């Protein structure tokens, strides 16, 4: 009951091979256009790759490019897909939309509707059961679409941004519901929210430009990002370079003091923005980086200071309190010093 996919779509620069173990929930993260939806479409059978093979639960899904081309149509895959748009059937009520999967599986009308009611309740949309999709709000439609995908009780579930368009209360309810539901199923979930990955994914895959650039257990990938996108996602500052005795030397020549991973090894260092102190003059600290402010962003209690640093070889950001920001007279273009202790840096090979 595991999934193994290897597929290539030349037109989209997509080339991925991926395995998902039975019962595992995999989160797919990545920038827009990375190929996340493309991957789900291929697994679901909506997109035929130019070449590749796929297998799910011992059954071949497709095998293209060899001598005998094989293609299992979507309805025979036992894989249900929640696409990025809700795409509710406009001529059916919310209830019948959700009941569509059970009905197609051969259940009686009443049984299918009973199942559908259960799922509508799970997504807090029980009161919408007789509404037509055309009269639902964006978030309401999204909830019904989630219920529909889950009600098909597929062996493999593919969810493309299931919690988008949902309000905070419902999102957190659904996040918990998905954690419960996905615990016993094999699933792939595309998301832009780290919280989703943390809540219900066993493992994450980070995609970019049609390829997988990082993967591993959720916490590990998010705590030790190897790629700037992953670092941004995890809300960390990432500095890459080569390991040294002191810690790490960036390509810009800056030495980051921290635990050593061995000299000459390609390595990365991660620093939490809240662990960075911001100074107008060089302070006394384990690590001091000279930066130029590029942008200031209010964030509730604090202000995020985004900066560029040639020595660090990229952008760094830190959070300061509004009071401190005023004291430092922050403005784009200002020169500052970011300081952080060696103990706050996590250095690891990449």
């Amino acid at each position, binding site marked *: 009951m595991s999934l193994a996919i290897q597929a290539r779509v030349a037109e989209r620069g997509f080339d991925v091979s991926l395995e998902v173990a039975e019962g595992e929930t995999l989160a797919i993260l990545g920038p827009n256009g990375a190929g996340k939806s493309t991957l789900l479409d291929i697994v679901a*059978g909506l997109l035929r790759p130019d070449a590749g093979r796929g297998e799910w639960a011992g059954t071949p899904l497709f095998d293209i490019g060899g001598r005998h081309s094989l293609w299992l149509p979507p309805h025979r895959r036992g894989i249900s897909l929640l696409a990025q748009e809700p795409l509710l059937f406009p001529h059916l009520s919310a209830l019948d939309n959700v009941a569509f999967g059970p009905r*197609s599986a051969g259940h009686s009308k009443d049984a299918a509707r009973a199942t559908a009611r259960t799922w509508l309740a799970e997504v807090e949309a029980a009161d919408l059961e007789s509404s037509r999709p055309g009269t*639902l709000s964006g978030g309401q439609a999204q909830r019904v679409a989630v219920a*529909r995908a889950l009600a098909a009780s597929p062996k493999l579930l593919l969810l493309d941004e299931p919690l988008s368009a949902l309000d905070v209360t419902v999102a957190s309810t659904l996040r918990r519901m998905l954690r419960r539901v996905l615990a016993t199923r094999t699933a792939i979930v595309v998301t832009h929210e780290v919280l989703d990955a943390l809540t219900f994914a066993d493992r994450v895959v980070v995609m970019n430009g049609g390829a997988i650039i990082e993967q591993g257990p959720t916490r590990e990938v998010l705590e030790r990002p190897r790629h700037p996108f992953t670092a941004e996602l995890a809300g960390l500052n990432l500095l890459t370079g080569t390991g040294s005795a002191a810690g790490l030397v960036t390509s810009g020549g800056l030495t980051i003091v921290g635990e050593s991973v061995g000299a000459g090894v390609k390595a990365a260092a991660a620093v939490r923005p809240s662990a960075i102190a911001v100074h107008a003059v060089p302070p006394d600290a384990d690590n001091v980086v000279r930066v130029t402010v590029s942008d200031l962003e209010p964030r509730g209690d604090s202000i995020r200071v985004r900066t560029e640093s040639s020595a660090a070889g990229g952008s760094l950001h830190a959070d300061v309190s509004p009071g401190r920001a005023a004291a430092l007279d922050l403005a784009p273009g200002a020169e500052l010093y970011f300081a952080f202790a060696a103990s706050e840096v996590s250095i690891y090979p990449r």
Partner: protein
Amino acid sequence: MDIRRSSTIPRWVIVVAVVGAVFVLFPLVAMTTRVDWPNFLVLITSPSSVAALLLSLRTSLAATAACVVLGVPLALMLARTEFRGQRLVRALVLLPLVLPPVIGGIALLAAFGRRGLLGQTFDFFGVTIAFSTTAVVIAQTFVALPFLVLSLESSLRLAGTRYEAVAATLGARPTTVLRRITLPLIFPALLSGAVLSFARALGEFGATLTFAGSLQGVTRTLPLEIYLQRETDPDAAVALSLVLVLVAVLVVGLTLRTSTVPSLVRRGTS
């Protein structure tokens, strides 16, 4: 509630539309001036007129059913599959539209007539098509089918395959998808295609005359009756035409309702 649709179409469009409507409606109104109203009831209730009307309704309904049965799959094949020669098939399926009706009848004779390519086969099974009501239905189906296929195909393309794909990922077999998604989605188009076919079958004349002949109660449909009446009594012909027009208006008016247009900026309604 949705946008007042009138606000999105330019006013000059309405003006031209009214001109267009008048262009079609005016001759119909003018026609009523040629009706011999005092004798109208007598003319249209003559046994031969009634027989022709009933035969026309029966055969047109049968032809419409045949068009739906054959035309829906044809439209699906043209819209949802790709094969070599598809454009040729589409063009050929259109042909009965352009064939002068009489020649359509000759083509049908060449195919299904007693000396036609399939005639021997039919004869062998003791089936004679010519001069039978079946022949009328065949002729009407032949000329009406393209209407259904063409109007349905463009609607199928416009509707796209996204909902069908979603249904498939929910485990629905192709037949289920067809029955529960595709057909309901294009139902308004199917209905208007069927009405078009019915209307065309109801007005069919030339192919019927050539292929089926003209015998009261068996093959003489209302258009044939009208044509014949014209020889002796043009007034009666016009009166009968008015009956045909009324039947058509009734059928069309009762079936083609203003279908509800999906609301505007809502998700999931595409």
